[in-house]
Every structure is written in structure tokens, then in C-alpha cells.
């Protein structure tokens, strides 16, 4: 039994947004609150105004969509997945709590639209249209919510700043205490000693040490001395260095080593004394001594 109303003269509207005065006419309400004076629901931006009223149909501040300034008004609101059609009953303007009449809409989209049509029959086109639009939008976002909850949800874990700072500091201290480079080097040398690398690296001192240990079972001191001398030279040679070479080297090697140390030039030692581990090209220089001799004789 709803009759079409216009912003009629007999209607009172109590506006929760203003403070003292009671207005009778929605026109008056709009002329003052909506347009000119302060409305507590209105938010202005540079280009547009918005209406923060919870019963607003569109969210904009317009003459036709102001819930205060229209005696005939309806909205769709959604609560916990259920949609309701709210209609303003202007006879109850004195009782704001009972002002809005609520109709629950059907879960089925089409049936709900029919319900809206049924309830808002003879109402202005604008309100009907906007209600349906709003209802469509609401159902769409409800569908989206349901879809998203089935997918993976990103969980945000709150971090405690104190704990984070503490852990960072402890990590730094642990890093210092760890002495990583030393630890790694030690481990690698251990593995070398344990012979995990097999035959790849040949360090004669290592081999000599082993031989030493073996010989010490029934050894002479002389053997030990000879081997110590060879150790002193710090040969990084292959194990195949024969004993003849070694003996020959002993006398000359010391001088040559000293010479080498003194002059870091390309003048190489005799072949076989100091070999380097890396790829090393040996160059032999021949020194011509004849001209000097000639000079001396003449």
C-alpha cells in the first residue's frame, strides 16, 4: 500500500546530521544540509562529494540519492552474506530506529530481483534501477569472496621488533665466533690428511712423514737426518725425484736458492731444482763467456 510521494509538505524528517532544527520538507533539508550548510555525512573532494550515510544507495552526495533529503528511499544492504532491501517509511520519521523497513532477499539472483521489483513497485525509476545495480554488485563481490577463500590465502605473520633485533645481533656474534674461513680450511686440511683425496695431490713431505713413521719402527737416526734435510728444501716436487738428484742438489741448491731470492729475474736455476706447482715454462739462458775471456788475454 505504498503511494507515490513527492517531497510533500506534510512530511517531517528528523535529520540526525544536524543539531537543533526540525525540518518538515525534504526540499528544505536538501537546500540547507545537502547543498549549503554542514552535513555530517558529506565528504567533499575536489571534484565530487560523497555520502557516508550507511543507508545511502549510491555513495555520492546528490539530490536524488541523499537518504535524508528524500522521503521515498530504499537501499540494498548486505550482512554476513545475506542481502536485505531497506525501505524508508516516512511516517515513522519521528522514530529513527524504526524508520527503515527490512526485507530479506532470496539467495537466487533472479528471484531476488523479482522481489525488489515487487517491493518497489510504483517507486521512481531511479531508485529501482539503482537498487538493482547495487544488488548486482553485492552479489558479484560475494561470489568473489567465496572463490578466494577456497584459494591459497597469504598469511601475514607479525614480527616482533625486539625479537628481530635480538636475533640479528646474535647472528652477527655467531658469525664472528664461527670463524668460518678457519673452520673450512681446517676441515679441508683434515680431509687431506685423512687421504680422502687419494692421489690427486702429492705432497712429498706428507709422504715422507708417512715413510718416517713407518721407518721409525726400526729406524736409524741417519735416515731421519737425511730426510730432514730434504724437508728443509721444501720441495714441492713429485715423489719421483731420485736420490742422485737430491744429493747433487744439496750442494748447489742452497746457493741457487739464495741467488734466486736475491734476483727475481728470469735467470732460471738449473733445471730440476725448484719446480713450481702451476704450469711453468722453463727458459734456459745461455751465457756467452767467450768474449770476456778474449778481452782478458789481449
Amino acid at each position, binding site marked *: 500500500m505504498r503511494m507515490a510521494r513527492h517531497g510533500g509538505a506534510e512530511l517531517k524528517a528528523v535529520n540526525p546530521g544536524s543539531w537543533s532544527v526540525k525540518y518538515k520538507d525534504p526540499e528544505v533539508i536538501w537546500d540547507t544540509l545537502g547543498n549549503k550548510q554542514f552535513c555530517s555525512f558529506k565528504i567533499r573532494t575536489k571534484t565530487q562529494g560523497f555520502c557516508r550515510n550507511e543507508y545511502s544507495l549510491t555513495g555520492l552526495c546528490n539530490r536524488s540519492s541523499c537518504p535524508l533529503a528524500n522521503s521515498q528511499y530504499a537501499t540494498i544492504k548486505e550482512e554476513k552474506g545475506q542481502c536485505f532491501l531497506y525501505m524508508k517509511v516516512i511516517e515513522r520519521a519521528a522514530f529513527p530506529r524504526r524508520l527503515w523497513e527490512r526485507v530479506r532477499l532470496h539467495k537466487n539472483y533472479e528471484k531476488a530481483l523479482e522481489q525488489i521489483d515487487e517491493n518497489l513497485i510504483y517507486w521512481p525509476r531511479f531508485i529501482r534501477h539503482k537498487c538493482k545495480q547495487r544488488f548486482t554488485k553485492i552479489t558479484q563481490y560475494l561470489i568473489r569472496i567465496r572463490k578466494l577463500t577456497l*584459494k*591459497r590465502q*597469504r598469511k601475514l605473520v607479525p614480527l*616482533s621488533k625486539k*625479537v628481530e633485533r*635480538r*636475533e*640479528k645481533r*646474535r*647472528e652477527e*656474534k*655467531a*658469525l664472528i*665466533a*664461527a670463524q*668460518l*674461513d678457519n*673452520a*673450512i*680450511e681446517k*676441515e*679441508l*686440511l683434515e*680431509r*687431506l690428511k685423512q687421504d680422502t*683425496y*687419494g692421489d*690427486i*695431490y702429492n*705432497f712429498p*713431505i*706428507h709422504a715422507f712423514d708417512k715413510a718416517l713413521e713407518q721407518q721409525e719402527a726400526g729406524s736409524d737416526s741417519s735416515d731421519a737426518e737425511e730426510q730432514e734435510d730434504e724437508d728443509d728444501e721444501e720441495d*714441492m716436487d713429485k715423489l719421483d725425484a731420485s736420490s742422485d738428484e737430491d744429493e747433487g742438489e744439496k750442494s748447489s741448491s742452497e746457493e741457487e736458492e739464495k741467488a734466486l731470492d736475491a734476483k727475481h729475474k728470469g735467470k732460471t736455476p738449473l733445471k730440476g731444482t725448484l719446480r713450481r*706447482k702451476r704450469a711453468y715454462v722453463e727458459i734456459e739462458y745461455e751465457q756467452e763467456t767467450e768474449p770476456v775471456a778474449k778481452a782478458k788475454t789481449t
Partner: protein
Amino acid sequence: ANTMEKTGGSRKKGLKRKSAAEEPQEAAVGEDGATESGGEAPKASAFPPGFSISEIKNKQRRHLMFTRWKQQQRKEKLAAKKKLKKEREALGDKAPPKPIPKTIDNQRVYDETTVDPNDEEVAYDEATDEFASYFNRQTSPKILITTSDRPHGRTVRLCEQLSTVIPNSHVYYRRGLALKRIIPQCISRDFTDLIVINEDRKTPNGLILSHLPNGPTAHFKMSSVRLRKEIKRRGKDPTEHVPEIILNNFTTRLGHSVGRMFASLFPHNPQFIGRQVATFHNQRDYIFFRFHRYIFKSEKKVGIQELGPRFTLKLRSLQKGTFDSKYGEYEWVHKPREMDTSRRKFHL
């Protein structure tokens, strides 16, 4: 009494043990002892019993007394050190060995789950756990590396570099897929491990390591990530050789299982020609990952050169099955309020 206090305050610090003796006596109104202690001033550490510097109400005076006391302490300490040093020199060889300084690692609270190398139970457990098939050479590792949704550049690069470090690993872009769906697919394609690098605000901050056919899942917090180009004095890019592994300081049962998880990432036979080594070093529950190339310069000397990314991990939780945050059975969870209270208690 007031005048005494004032002059006492205005005198220089170095002068007065006398006043130190006198003032508190004034304050404590020890009239009997006053004259006597005035006489014995230099020897008087004779404050009336129960007196502490913190009871002086005047802040300036209190500060003065405190600094004076501190200086004294320092002097005494220095004197004690010198004396000790002299004694040590005098004794020469017979001197007792130097006391070992206390470190957190020395003072660590003994963990009853520390693994004894000869422990049979542990050996039995390890022979029958999920990694047994790896350690028996039945399976060889095949790793899938991925990230959380929409990774940023840093994370992607870290994944690429990780895949060069870990042989036989593949990087796949995560396109919003659920881990629960990925895991069965991985299993069907014969992957043995899954690594997910979690990202927050464009930096990687978490690592989930899951051993695939229903193996344990470890969740780590990752910090201090350095990509290759951020490492100073680094060597050239790693080659395809299989690296060696070093696992340091994994002592407890928990540490053991985590260590085995890491070990099962790498193929069994390291190629020593490659001279590359990946290190997982545990120190105080922080696992430092480094990747180096080494060269033996001599018997006793080895040079190492860092390649490869580096990061530190801290174990947050160890879960029995594959990744399942809701219904999973957690073997170990890090609870900061209970576990972080002692500075000398570590779990790995």
C-alpha cells in the same frame, strides 16, 4: 657537617681516600669511629657496614664516589694482572697453563640430545629414517627450486645461483600454484627434494626444504643473503663439478637430522677435480652457508676463494611429513618465549 661535605666535594678526586672515609661517616653519623678513621685514612676501606655508594642521595657526590671506586677497581685489577704475569715469568716452564677464557660456546648448556658417535640407537634410527635410501645410494637427488608468489628480482637471481650451486636442480616459476598440488606432481616426476624460497618485500627471507617422498619438511628463516655480485673478492662462477660438502657442528639429534637433510641435497660422489666445497656451518643455532673453491698450496696451507651465494639460516620448525601447515605433525617448533630465554642454550 655541611662544610665538611662541601670541601670534600670540591677537592680533587685523586687526593682523597680520607674524605671518602670521612664523608660517609658523617652521613651515617658514626661519631665514635670518626676520629679513629680520620687517623687511619689511607688504609680505611672502612665504610660503615651496610653502606653502598648507591645510597648517597646527592647525584654529583654519588657519581664522584662511584668514579673513584671504579678507578680503584681498575688499579687493583691491573696490579693483580701484573703480579700474575710476573709469577708466570718467574715460574717459566712450570707455570700452570693459562686459564681458558669463557665463551658462550664453552659455557653452552649441555644438551641431553647430543649425539654420541657410538650411539647405537642413533645409528639404528638413521638406518631406517627417510634419508636411508639416499645414504644407501639407492636414490640420487633431484631438486626443485621455486619461490613464493610473484617473486622479485633478487629472489629470482638467488634461485638461479642456488641451482648452479646444487647439481641436478631445476628452477620453476611458481604461478600461484598451491604447494599441496605441486608436491604430488613432483613426486610423480621423481624429484627428491623441494626448496621454496619465501619472499617478503622484495628480499628472500625464508626457506622451506622438503624431502619429497613423505620426508621431513624444515622451515628456516633466511637472513644476510648475498648474491654473487655482492661478494667481495670472489672467484669466477662455479663449474658443473659436483661439490664437496662440509657440515660443521651439528651435534644434537635435531642437528643431526637437519644435517642429513642438507647432505641429501648433493650427489654422493664429489668430484675433487672441481675443488669446490659447500659448507653448512652451525654456530649457536645459526647455519651459515658458504660456497668456496679451494686450492692446496702446500701440506699445511690451503687457500679458499668464495664463489657463490651466501646466506644464514635459522631453523624455525621441523615437520614430519611434507609441507602441510595446518594438519602437519611438528617434530620441533621454535618458540621464542621459551627457547630464547637462556643465552647459553642451543638446540641444533
